[in-house]
């Protein structure tokens, strides 16, 4: 990819897609999918189509700080038909350490050029946390601290997208005892216009949808109190989980590889944080919609929730309470209630006890 040449030649999004051989049909499909991701009715599709046809590709710089490049991988691995092309061609990616050709001062010049020439117009994407301790020495690029770079680049951007949990709220880097004083970009550079797109890694479809929303409506999508878009983080995983009927029926996995696990029962007892996590994983999924952690048989670790590594208890210990959605009850009450409603007193007792964590009886059918 010739990143520098794109500075001179910045066609409209529709032109860029055409050049890549994306058919009209695939383009409309893409717009429809984006509308669905954004939880918009299909009547908004023409508006999205029109915006993408007319708008010039926005300049984007991708900064990496205390990261593992997992979000970059997530972006590059986008495989849904045409998404890979769209992510790379809807935007004009001018700077990205992991994939760009130039190095050293040439790389830094590409970044400086965008900041100078596109001031107030470009999108800054930030991956990785920003360390504040000891003057920010724990992450430097080109001799400058992450904080110094973020202040300049994010401070002059039209908007900043914090992709992944590290740039959203500190992520892994901020796990106890947070040795480097790592924080998210919103905290490190107060006053900027930003969206948090956490997740470990971020889901590329939510990132694309946020950019398209911005291009179509000229503003950020509605955000929650953690600065995350509501379209992606407005719903609880537990409420949309494909294993939810098993929770309601009191059918739980109690041991890795037991019959319930093989049958795809609820992972609550194994420590699933789905009841306290808000993310659209159950509908968007990962790897081109192939699967997601719970579908694969692993409990949710609430990767997109602030301080998930420390605040939700050990990953494989079950949550004490199941909050939200009009009721506040522990799982034993729910399991008990449902079973009792089925007028099966003995079964109710069995399920209730099992959920309370009493000695396991035997795998149930």
């Amino acid at each position, binding site marked *: 990819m010739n990143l520098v040449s794109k500075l001179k030649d910045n066609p409209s999004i529709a032109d860029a897609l055409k050049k890549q051989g994306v058919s009209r049909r695939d383009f409309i499909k893409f717009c429809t999918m984006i509308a669905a991701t954004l939880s918009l009715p299909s009547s908004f599709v023409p508006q999205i189509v029109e915006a993408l046809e007319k708008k010039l590709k926005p300049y984007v710089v991708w900064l*990496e*700080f*205390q990261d*593992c*490049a*997992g979000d970059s991988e997530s972006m590059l691995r986008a495989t849904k038909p045409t998404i890979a092309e769209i992510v790379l061609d809807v935007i004009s990616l001018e700077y990205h*350490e*992991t*994939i*760009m*050709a*130039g*190095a*050293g001062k040439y*790389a*830094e010049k590409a970044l400086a050029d965008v900041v100078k020439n596109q001031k107030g117009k470009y999108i800054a994407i930030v991956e990785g*946390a920003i*360390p504040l301790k000891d003057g920010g020495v*724990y*992450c*430097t*690029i*080109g*001799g400058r601290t992450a904080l110094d770079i973020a202040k300049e680049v994010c401070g002059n951007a039209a908007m900043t997208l914090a992709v992944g949990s590290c740039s959203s709220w500190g992520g*892994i*880097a901020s*796990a*106890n*005892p947070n*040795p*480097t004083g*790592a924080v998210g970009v919103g905290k490190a550079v107060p006053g900027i216009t930003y969206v948090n797109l956490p997740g*470990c890694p971020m889901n590329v479809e939510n990132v694309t949808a946020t950019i398209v929303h911005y291009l179509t409506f000229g503003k950020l999508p509605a955000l929650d109190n953690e600065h995350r878009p509501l379209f992606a983080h407005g719903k609880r995983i537990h409420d949309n989980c494909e294993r939810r009927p098993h929770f309601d029926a009191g059918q739980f996995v109690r041991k890795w590889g037991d019959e319930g696990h093989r049958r795809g029962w609820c992972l609550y007892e194994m420590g699933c944080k789905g009841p306290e996590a808000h993310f659209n994983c159950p509908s968007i999924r990962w790897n081109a919609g192939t699967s997601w952690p719970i579908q694969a048989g692993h409990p949710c*670790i609430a990767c997109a929730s602030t301080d998930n*590594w420390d605040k939700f208890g*050990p*990953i*494989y*210990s079950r949550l004490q309470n199941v909050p939200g959605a009009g009721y506040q009850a522990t799982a034993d009450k729910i399991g008990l209630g449902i079973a009792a409603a089925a007028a099966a007193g003995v079964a109710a007792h069995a399920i209730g006890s099992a959920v309370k964590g009493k000695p396991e009886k035997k795998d149930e059918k």
Partner: protein
Amino acid sequence: MAKIAIDPITRIEGHLRIEAQVDGGKVTDAWSSGTMWRGIELMMKNRDPREVWTLLSRV
């Protein structure tokens, strides 16, 4: 005699700086530095051993 620095080294995962001592068009000495540190080892202390992989796999 001149000392040059290439920072960032791109197309790698992580942050790397290479400095080289150049003497008459020949590199006579060189130094490399990883310029990012998170201290993930320190986060492993007192953690439930079963969940350590979930953090370490994200290095």
